[in-house]
């Protein structure tokens, strides 16, 4: 099948691009690998997206965006993206077959960065978690650890301290990267305990998480920590692996664009969290989605002339 535009990623940026591209009359296909709505589905209450003064749940906002996006004949497909190649126009190779298209909008966002240590994958869902908002509920009066030292780690630790009896924050340095105000709030929480200069070597447990094996990076000393859950908050990885061959990325793997969302390859645009220097907000992702769709529209018109 051949399309004017293929949008990769069904979060706020991709869904908005789909809405604008179909409304401008382009034959459009949106490919999503998991569930439409994207990362916002994990947020219980979104209070900083304009138009919802009482806040709105991520699931509801995601559903609204999806319903609006498919209202104007946006075709959708659930598939993994394998690769993107220049061929006639562009060829998008997916797990469910190939698609020919004149233009592409990449809105694949990012995923939780993993620790890549033994036990992490096996005990995922059984005490290893990447989302405190989603899973904190299950650790009422339990002992948990948060790994990381940035804003997300500290916000997670504060949120978890509302459920858990004790929250350890394990950080590989001797100070936090999180904002000063957040740090002050965290240091004032009696339930939070900081373990500095320490990395996690292994998650231990038979059917569920029981212990962490730790190493102090300065003294080299090894130790064990008994816990019921571990929340990994060591940042995000951009989902750009499929585009390495064709696009210019920055050193962290984010796609470099200009102010019109154009990438280094003509006809390929990027929107949302996958862009370098993205503020990583729903509102900015939506704005990117609009700009990318408009740029793609202009590009296709020029190609046709």
């Amino acid at each position, binding site marked *: 099948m051949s399309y004017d535009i293929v949008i990769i990623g069904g979060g706020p940026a991709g869904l908005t691009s789909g809405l604008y591209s179909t409304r401008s009359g382009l034959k459009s296909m949106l490919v999503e690998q998991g569930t439409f709505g994207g990362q916002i589905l994990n947020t219980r209450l979104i209070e900083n997206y304009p138009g919802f003064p009482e806040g709105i749940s991520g699931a509801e906002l995601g559903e609204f965006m999806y319903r609006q996006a498919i209202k104007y004949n946006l075709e959708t497909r659930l598939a993994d993206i394998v690769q993107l190649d220049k061929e006639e126009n562009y060829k998008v190779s997916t797990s469910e077959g190939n698609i020919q298209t004149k233009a592409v909008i990449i809105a694949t966002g990012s995923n939780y960065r993993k620790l890549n240590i033994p036990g992490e994958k096996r005990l995922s869902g*059984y005490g290893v978690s990447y989302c405190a908002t*989603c*899973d904190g*509920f299950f650790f009422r009066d339990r002992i948990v650890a948060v790994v990381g030292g940035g804003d997300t780690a500290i916000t997670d630790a504060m949120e978890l301290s509302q459920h858990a009896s004790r929250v350890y924050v394990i950080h590989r340095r001797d100070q936090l990267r999180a904002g000063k105000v957040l740090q002050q709030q965290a240091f004032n929480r009696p339930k939070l305990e900081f373990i500095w200069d320490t990395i996690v070597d292994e998650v231990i447990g038979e059917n569920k998480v029981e212990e962490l094996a730790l190493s102090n990076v300065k003294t080299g000393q090894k130790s064990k920590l008994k816990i019921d859950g571990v929340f990994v908050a060591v940042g995000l990885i951009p989902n750009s692996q499929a585009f390495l061959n064709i696009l210019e990325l920055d050193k962290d793997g984010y796609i470099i664009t200009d102010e019109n969302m154009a990438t280094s390859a003509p006809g390929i645009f990027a929107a949302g969290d996958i862009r370098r220097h993205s503020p990583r907000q729903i509102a900015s992702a939506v704005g990117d989605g609009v700009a990318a769709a408009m740029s793609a529209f202009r590009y296709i018109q020029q190609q046709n002339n």
Partner: protein
Amino acid sequence: MSKVIEVTDQTFKEEVLESDLPTEIDFWAPWCGPCRVVSPIYDRLSAEYEGIFKFCKLDVDKNPNTVAKYHIMSIPMQMFFYSGEKVDEILGAVPESTILAMVENMIKRFPVDEIGKLKTILSSWVEINRNYSNKFNKWANGVNNLESNLTYNNIYQTVKDVNNSSNKLSRALLELDGNK
């Protein structure tokens, strides 16, 4: 129409562990966003696979015993059971194709005997008949003087026949139980 069965700590054993069919249970909560994405998939599949595969769900807020027993610490968590044993699981919100592949795979791995399938079909049939028979009776009790009308008379007679047939099916079901 959804045929997903709402299971509790009290009914888990009967509905899931003692189920005649391969069975899926979706651990969910009202506050869980991704759960809302997968639940319509299960609603749809439950109708499509009625009598072949059983779909259940359990609210983790209200049923702490089952949650503790299966170490549920992240939702949506979907577990697959056959003959009282947990045989597989899917963690997180996944596309319909993944769920469908798992269900088809379960059906292949754990073929249900023909009598088991027949029993499931017949028992839901009998139950539907019972529901509609009750609805009809409720309606009929509220109206007067329709017996003289020939059309209504025919309807009353037909309902009676259906009820009789349904009772026969119920008895046949009991016999099937005895044969197993």
